């Protein structure tokens, strides 16, 4: 009986049957790999190729222009220079102001939710709820809430601030709405990180007579280092990727000041159909993000 099953197993392993032969792993991989090659790998390479051409979707000829699309971005006399760098600046301002809030506030919320108490799951779900809504819904809702004539916010504050059309208020609105929308996401990640910190460390801190603050400084914070690195990195990337809020909430107002790099790049590439130039811009933005990410990693590693 034993030998019988053994030979049967051996036969099926060595056989050429579709689902047990050598091709098996590739059959499992094939459907995903086809999609991956067509919609991820090919675009990654094709984008570089497009960026080296004067690629206008609406025109027949797409002449090779070498690095012209890139050098135009650094030439103050080119048509795209001003708009591109204003949009890069907008992305920079938004990232600079939203990241600190999105790193610190969720930590506070996670700390409050980290101890067992009645209704914990309920509150966690509540703070996370805005994140399950799409950017279109969130912006539509807040545009109305922030309306200077009919909005609830100005009425509550007794002000008549033009939240979506004047700076610096438009920045306050963009950052505030984004914090409201995505705070729960970072909070949940912190919370999971806190639950992975060994209980014994807290017990030991208690034995040493540590107060709650000392416990936070010497146990919770160091224990959260890898999670915090993840939160900071993904938040910087998400902020630099910001599109919907600028497109829908402020619509770039006033005068394109709050138009982010992605909004501008997609406008050039997919509305004006100047894809060569837009692709070059997206690679320059990517390069900037790589530099920021590397600096960020260095900073975290340097302190450990």
């Amino acid at each position: 009986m034993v030998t019988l099953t053994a030979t049967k197993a051996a036969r099926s392993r060595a056989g050429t049957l579709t689902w047990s032969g050598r091709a098996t792993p590739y059959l499992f991989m094939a459907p995903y790999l086809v999609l991956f090659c067509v919609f991820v790998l090919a675009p990654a390479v094709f984008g570089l190729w497009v960026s080296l051409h004067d690629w206008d979707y609406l025109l027949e000829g797409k002449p090779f222009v070498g690095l012209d699309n890139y050098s135009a971005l650094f030439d103050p006399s080119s048509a795209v220079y001003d708009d591109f760098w204003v949009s890069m600046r907008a992305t920079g301002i938004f990232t600079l102001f939203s990241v600190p809030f999105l790193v610190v506030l969720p930590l506070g919320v996670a700390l409050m939710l980290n101890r067992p108490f009645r209704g914990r799951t309920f509150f966690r779900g509540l703070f996370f709820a805005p994140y399950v809504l799409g950017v279109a819904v969130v912006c539509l809702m807040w545009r109305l809430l922030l309306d200077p004539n009919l909005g609830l916010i100005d009425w509550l504050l007794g002000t008549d601030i033009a939240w979506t059309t004047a700076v610096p208020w438009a920045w306050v609105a963009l950052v505030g709405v984004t914090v409201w929308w995505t705070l729960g996401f970072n909070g949940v990640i912190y919370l999971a990180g806190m639950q992975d910190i060994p209980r014994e460390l807290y017990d030991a801190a208690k034995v040493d007579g540590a107060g709650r603050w000392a416990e936070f400084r010497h146990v919770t914070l160091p224990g959260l280092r890898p999670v915090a690195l993840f939160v900071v990195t993904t938040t910087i990337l998400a902020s630099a990727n910001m599109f919907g809020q600028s497109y829908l909430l402020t619509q770039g107002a006033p005068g394109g000041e709050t138009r982010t790099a992605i909004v501008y790049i997609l406008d050039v590439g997919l509305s004006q159909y100047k894809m060569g130039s837009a692709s070059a811009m997206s690679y320059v933005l990517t390069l900037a993000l790589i530099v920021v990410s590397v600096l960020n990693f260095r900073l975290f590693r340097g302190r450990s």
Partner: protein
Amino acid sequence: MRRYTVLVALAVVFVAPLLWALGTSLKSQTEATRVPPTVWPAEPVTDAYGTLFEGTTQTPVLRWFLNSLIAATGHMLLVLAVSSLAAYALARLEFRGKRLMFGVIVGTLLVPGFVFLIPQFLIIDQLGWLDSLTALIVPGAAGAFGVFFLRQFFLGLPRELDEAALMEGANHWHIFLRVTLPLSKPALATLAVLSFMSNWNDFIWPVYVLFSPEYFTLPPGLSILQGAYTIDYPVIMAGAVLASVPVLILFALTQRYVIEGISRSGLKG
């Protein structure tokens, strides 16, 4: 007690805007434009929903709802199918090029998505998929998250059951279908909910690949609605409510899965 005071205050900040949107959708147009604004409608009416569902040729809202449902469901099913197959190979089988493939797939998780948008648009155009729901269903399924997420889960499953089945003469296809998938229901449910929600909410891609109102999904549709009903706030908010209710219900029912899935992606990412 102090904890509850802070938590309740925060909860108000998080929930009030949602309730206010719901309230506005139930106001008459005159009440919605009244100064000072009312927080909750004095006399709730459903006129706005009537107008919304009736639609026009420029704003066929029910059609958008249906399109969103089809696109999100199709995308979800495709993600589950292709990701689970690939994840099984990566977690359970040995083959040439496996490490390289996994490295490249995971590596793309670090590349910001916008880099792909313009070349993807050109590829979709070549395939003749512009201005169709196919453009919303298929390309997104190439994302690395599902494969990565399911592979981690499959690696955690005991191998003994697979080996016993192999001894019985079962092939990998049977093991995948009858052992791995049934044991992975929680992970599959998490991935299903996350991919449904992300597709349902997607805004940036449909805005650029869809042109005809009849193919729109709700997110790009809402911005059309805003243009068409400029100051008819109840109708606009009714549209926002329509786009939120399905995902909020889904979230309420599957909260544990969604939050666990998100926290796990954070820890291992």
